């Protein structure tokens, strides 16, 4: 046992010195960091402001479109302000000063009434002033989000009173980016032009007047509202405009049919909330919240972690075994320790490396999450709560160890018969393919954690660690939980025993690696 520990310690110490280990240690958190940060950066910096021209000679729809775009900007503003407050303002105390009404924390950018209140109170300036006394010392100034869409005037060379078709022709060079426009003295590129014909009302499609044979949409005609843009991949402006125009048309229809404007507004803001409830939860607390969503998806994150950890540790074990074999160090080792001790030492040394790596990843993950969500983050608190109250961490530890040992048995067998990594590649390709299954099913399992796919895959020992990890918070039936665990344990012990036999023969062999059948013969030979 002492020899096995010595081997394990060497494996640990030497692997911890390798570049691969440190790259692995930092690469995963870096990927997580980038996948959190890059979309935010892209959203903030890389998505260009879309400049557009709105031509509406009758001014029949322009005010509605402009108002809708402004509202969208205010929604973004409110969201940004709330995020700024969460990161930089002290939480509101309950006792001391009376809570100002409405406070930023009470408003919700997704709610239309909240947004109206925000705008009516004075928007950004009002709430920034309200926030001022609560700001932490050294808080950075508030950065206003960029407006995604910016309206520009028609170039002076184009006659706004001309026919729409002629305006469209004149605008084409700008839309194709052959010419640039000027906005606030700076040259800008025109992303879109919205042309509204004066007689747009004749184009309104009403169910009672449209023949069913006409198809879902009338064919395009120059008399329709036209949205010109060379960029078809960013549909946001088009969607905003379409939504605004149709909302306005419908509002007018209500009015035309004799409904009161106030009533219409009230009706538009009327809604009924739907509560998601979970029958498995304690009575009175069945409502599903963020916590439950985290609880449902956290296992998937652990499956991914498990997969990456097992896969990278496998690579280490493989290259390490092949090094000893190809360097013939193995002979000296085998004159000092038994093959069993050598195998045990390698398995535990590399397992310790794997656990160190995973530990560092989890720590880095928490670090990134807590940094991204401010000091006293609500989300990180909830993630911690889920980890504390669920069995995820111990389950992960058990499945990591068993899964690692089982796969390690295959790797040691492969490593012991191959002289170079190149020789091992064909075996490894098959292993990798086998290991892809849990990754591919990772997002399906939480949707139906006790369904047939999940249950069948759980009983295949190769996949048990991943699939059962995926089902960890879904209360799988006891038979699945214990049965698969016993099967996994038995498979792992059996695989290690057989790997030990292959290892003993293979490790001293030179020349071409044997066929799988021959390896099996070694394993099962009496």
């Amino acid at each position, binding site marked *: 046992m002492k020899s096995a520990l*010595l081997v394990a310690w060497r494996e640990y110490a030497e692997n911890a010195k*390798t570049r691969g280990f440190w790259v692995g240690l930092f690469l995963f958190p870096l990927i997580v960091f980038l996948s959190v940060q890059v979309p935010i950066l892209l959203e903030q910096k890389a998505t260009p402001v879309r400049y557009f021209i709105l031509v509406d000679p009758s001014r029949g729809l322009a005010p509605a479109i402009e108002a809708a775009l402004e509202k969208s900007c205010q929604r973004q503003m409110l969201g940004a302000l709330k995020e700024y407050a969460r990161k930089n303002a002290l939480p509101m105390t309950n006792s001391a000063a009376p809570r100002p009404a409405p406070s930023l924390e009470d408003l919700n950018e997704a709610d239309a009434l909240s947004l109206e209140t925000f705008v009516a109170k004075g928007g950004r300036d009002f709430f920034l002033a309200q926030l001022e006394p609560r700001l932490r010392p050294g808080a950075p100034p508030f950065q206003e989000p960029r407006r995604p869409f910016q309206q520009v005037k028609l170039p002076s060379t184009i006659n706004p009173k001309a026919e729409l078709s002629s305006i469209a022709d004149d605008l084409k060079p700008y839309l194709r980016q052959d010419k640039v426009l000027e906005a606030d003295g700076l040259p800008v590129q025109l992303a879109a032009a919205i042309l509204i014909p004066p007689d747009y009302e004749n184009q309104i499609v009403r169910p009672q007047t449209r023949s069913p044979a006409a198809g879902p949409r009338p064919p395009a005609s120059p008399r329709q509202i036209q949205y010109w843009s060379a960029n078809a991949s960013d549909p946001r402006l088009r969607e905003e405009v379409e939504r605004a125009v149709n909302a306005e048309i419908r509002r007018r229809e209500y009015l035309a049919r004799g409904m009161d404007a106030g009533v219409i507004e009230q009706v538009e803001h009327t809604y009924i909330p739907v509560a998601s409830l979970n029958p498995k939860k304690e009575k009175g607390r069945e409502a599903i919240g963020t916590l439950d969503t985290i609880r449902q998806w956290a296992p998937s994150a652990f499956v991914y972690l498990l997969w990456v950890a097992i896969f990278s540790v496998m690579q280490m074990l493989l290259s390490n075994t092949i090094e000893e074999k190809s360097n013939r*160090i193995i*002979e*000296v080792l085998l*004159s*000092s320790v038994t093959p069993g001790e050598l195998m045990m030492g390698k398995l535990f040394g590399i397992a310790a490396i794997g656990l160190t790596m995973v530990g560092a990843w989890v720590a880095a993950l928490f670090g990134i999450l807590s940094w991204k969500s401010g000091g006293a983050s609500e989300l990180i608190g909830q993630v911690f709560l889920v980890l504390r109250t669920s069995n995820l961490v111990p389950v992960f530890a058990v499945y990591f160890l068993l899964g690692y040992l089982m796969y390690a048995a295959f790797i040691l067998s492969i490593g012991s018969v191959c002289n170079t990594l190149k020789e091992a590649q064909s075996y490894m390709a098959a292993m990798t393919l086998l290991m892809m299954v849990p990754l591919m099913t990772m997002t399906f399992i939480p949707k139906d954690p006790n369904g047939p796919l999940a249950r069948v895959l759980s009983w295949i020992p190769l996949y048990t660690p991943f699939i059962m990890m995926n089902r960890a918070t879904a209360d799988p039936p006891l038979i699945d939980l214990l049965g698969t665990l016993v099967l996994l344990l038995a498979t792992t012990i059996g695989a290690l025993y057989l790997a030990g036999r292959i290892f003993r023969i293979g490790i001293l062999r030179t020349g071409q690696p044997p066929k799988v059948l021959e390896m099996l013969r070694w394993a099962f030979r009496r």
Partner: protein
Amino acid sequence: MKSENEMPAAAALQLRHVTKLFGQFKAVEDVSFSLGPGSICGFLGPNGAGKTTTIRMILEILKPTSGAITVLGRSSALEVRHRLGYLPEEKGLYKKMRAWSIIAYFATLKGMTRKAARKRAFELLERYGLKDFAEKPTDALSKGMAQKVQILASIAHDPELVILDEPFAGLDPVNQGVMEDLIRDLARRDRTVLFSTHVMEHAERLCQRILLIARGRLIFDGSMAEAKRTVPRRVRLETGDDISPLRDLAEVSAVRPLPRADGQADGRDPGSLHWELELRENSDPQVILQTCFGRGIRLQSFNQSEPTLHDVFMRLVGPEAREVAFR
């Protein structure tokens, strides 16, 4: 060969009728020998003779198909593995480990404490001229240096039985000398050394005892003097005269012309010629000299030399050699 009854009781190593089969192939067949403590024994044989397989069986890396092996009084080498030192034929080290730490690592595997192993590693590196390379990773060392590190790793724990498979391969002549001193030093301190080599000069200088193995079978086991006695004594002479009177002598078993410097071996060439005469056992070479004087054979040179181990090897396992058992 020595009978089993004669084997010393306190043998450092004893093999009895050891056979190893790989499938149908007999890698080692019925090998028996024993080594006393404090001896240096050369384990010789052509490539593929079964030396490495025998060594692996002694170290219990491989299990014999039949027969028994006793190492330092135990039936299993694993029980006494801390008292064994082994240098395999194909040498290799962990590339990224430093020289001292690799020596210390193998010493701790052999039961030394970490602290003592570290101290010993530095001591050995200093004694064998590698002090300046102690902190270098082994892939930064030259092939010879790396091999020295590996040799030191195999003896760092001061083993009682040291088995060295081709310890001289890859070393320059100076370091070969250092290696020879190291082996002699081990024997002086009552350690038993079994080493294999293809370079007969090393074995000749170092060994009291020779084991010769060919095609899996031990074909000679005895002292250096006994080994040399297996080769007939030879006399080399140079003369331009007819040597037929020498052919007829009872003491002479064979007469061969020796190849000339230009590779020719034609005894009928006129002028000075070189000959080699093989003598029967217990014959006195002086008889040849007397006959030459008596029959008027004029000698340019006369050389009566001891056979070398190379001659023994060539005779016993050379292409035309017959398998012979001695003693």
